[in-house]
């Protein structure tokens, strides 16, 4: 074989044998499909409904101290809107790529802001996350990698926020991992919250979106702080043992208190055996029954 032929063969083989890491076009407006967790994403969950959340004792205690009135305080109105709001809010997504102006290579993907959630910029250029003592904010710092057609984004450096909009909190040590999976005009987004402070294991939520020709607005943030008249110096809260909503899920849906208070065991099928004899099916649904999502 001549060296010329060898060169040709070697070059061709190198290119064919090691295809570029696949990427997929995620750009566009993605309309949220809120059939799942319709209440949680829409009007907001019932108070003290933490079933399916892998709380540890600290997470549960913090959540039990939560009074919804706390977000009337000017300094706390915006406290809960981290990137987890993609999972916990009802909003659609708009995504676009930011190319390097010289090479055209994608430097970052952006998930546009919505109201009080800041845009998520997913850096694709291999830059490292800041050091552990770097400042945290609600936006956090996000990098991404492709696994075939799956974009995996990792967010760190967020401030304390919420996991569920009824007081279940995430800490500033939490990491959010977001997987973007596209199937034609359908986008599935799977988000993990991994929080060593308040959770015993990672918490996962998945959300679905349809590609839409209607442009999704990308307004906000910042969250606008307002004065709702809470007197200065008062922090709305419940002391231990004083949360008045502990039996709310039992009263409304017959769900035992131990289930509503969450914990990793409530995420798995065998937990049903534990509550089977305590569950009482109400005669009729009386609250938050059928007025959201697709209804």
């Amino acid at each position, binding site marked *: 074989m001549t*060296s*010329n*032929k060898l*060169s*040709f063969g*070697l*070059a*061709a*083989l190198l*290119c*064919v044998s*090691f*295809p570029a890491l*696949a990427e*997929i076009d995620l750009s566009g407006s993605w309309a949220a499909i*809120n059939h*799942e*967790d*319709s*209440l949680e994403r829409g009007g907001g969950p019932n108070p003290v*409904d933490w079933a*399916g959340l892998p709380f540890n004792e600290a997470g549960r205690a913090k959540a039990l101290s939560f009074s919804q009135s706390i977000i009337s305080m000017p300094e706390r109105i915006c406290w809960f809107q981290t990137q987890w709001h993609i999972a916990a809010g009802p909003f659609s997504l708009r995504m676009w790529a930011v190319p390097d102006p010289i090479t055209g290579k994608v430097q970052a993907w952006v998930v546009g802001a919505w109201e009080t959630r800041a845009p998520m910029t997913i850096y694709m250029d291999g830059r490292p996350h800041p050091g552990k003592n770097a400042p945290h904010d609600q936006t956090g710092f996000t990098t991404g990698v*492709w*696994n*075939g*057609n*799956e974009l995996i984004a990792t967010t760190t450096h967020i401030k304390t926020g919420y996991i569920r909009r009824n007081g279940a909190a995430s800490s500033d040590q939490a*990491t959010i*991992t977001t*997987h973007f*999976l*596209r199937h*034609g*005009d359908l986008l*599935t987004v*799977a988000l*993990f919250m991994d929080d060593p402070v308040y959770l015993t294991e990672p*918490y*996962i939520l*998945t959300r*679905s979106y349809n590609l839409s020709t209607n442009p999704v607005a990308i307004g906000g943030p910042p969250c606008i702080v307002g004065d709702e008249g809470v007197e200065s110096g008062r922090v709305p809260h419940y002391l231990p043992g004083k949360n008045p909503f502990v039996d709310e899920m039992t009263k409304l*849906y017959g*769900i035992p208190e131990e*289930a509503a208070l969450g914990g990793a065991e*409530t*995420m*798995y*099928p065998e937990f*049903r055996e534990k*509550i089977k004899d305590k569950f009482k*099916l109400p*005669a009729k649904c*009386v609250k*938050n*029954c*059928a*007025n959201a*999502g*697709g*209804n």
Partner: protein
Amino acid sequence: MQRKILTLTWFMVGSLAGLLMTQSGLYAQGRGGRGGGAAQPQNAKAAAVFDPTGYWVSVITEDWRYRMVTPSPGDYQGVPMTPEARKVASAWDPAKEEASGDLCKSYGAPALLRVPNRLHITWQDDQTLRMDSDAGKQTRIFHFGDWKPAAAAPPTLQGESIAQWERGGGRGATDGSLKVATSNLKAGFLRKNGVPYSEKTTLTEYYDLIKAPNGDPLMVVTIITTDPTYLTQPFVITSQYKKESSDAKWNPTACSARW
């Protein structure tokens, strides 16, 4: 010098040829990126883009009150029901199901992966994937290749499912999806409290394998239920399953109309 230039030229031509071959493969995936890759080999087992076999446990972090307990009568939150569907659902009476012995209406294919359960997935043969659920003792069969359902076969709870691998295009070991299309379904319930689906229902599912932060495999199933009779739009939900190392917690239980 001339020889070096010639060699370099051949190298560049070779690179271009290789790149063209690679890019044409990627281009074939289309904008959606899935489903348009190279022709699949005949053997679905050998062509699998990820290993779906083994024991999987459902992780119930969403729609908890419709899944882990029996939802209250009239609790239809999130389901895009037609007025007719509401009428049917409002007549739900588990005692009637018990009397007729029709206890498995909420264990049909559109609802099975919403049931708190464990799945055991195996290759029945090189072209057929089998999924068993301990809850309700149900079995789904996914046929690959050119399998055709029998003519005039009666509808069944799990219907007839045709499967295909949809390749991604990258190097990842979990790169791609399993797409399953199911039809010929017997009517049943999307939720145990009588939210109906009809025999006209079709089901499309995408199975993806992702990794949890600790590296554990997690199967994410996007479920699209279409029913012109009882749904105003496709009902889209996603269920997730964590891989288990053994059958230690496998617990077959019969269907129940109440729990």
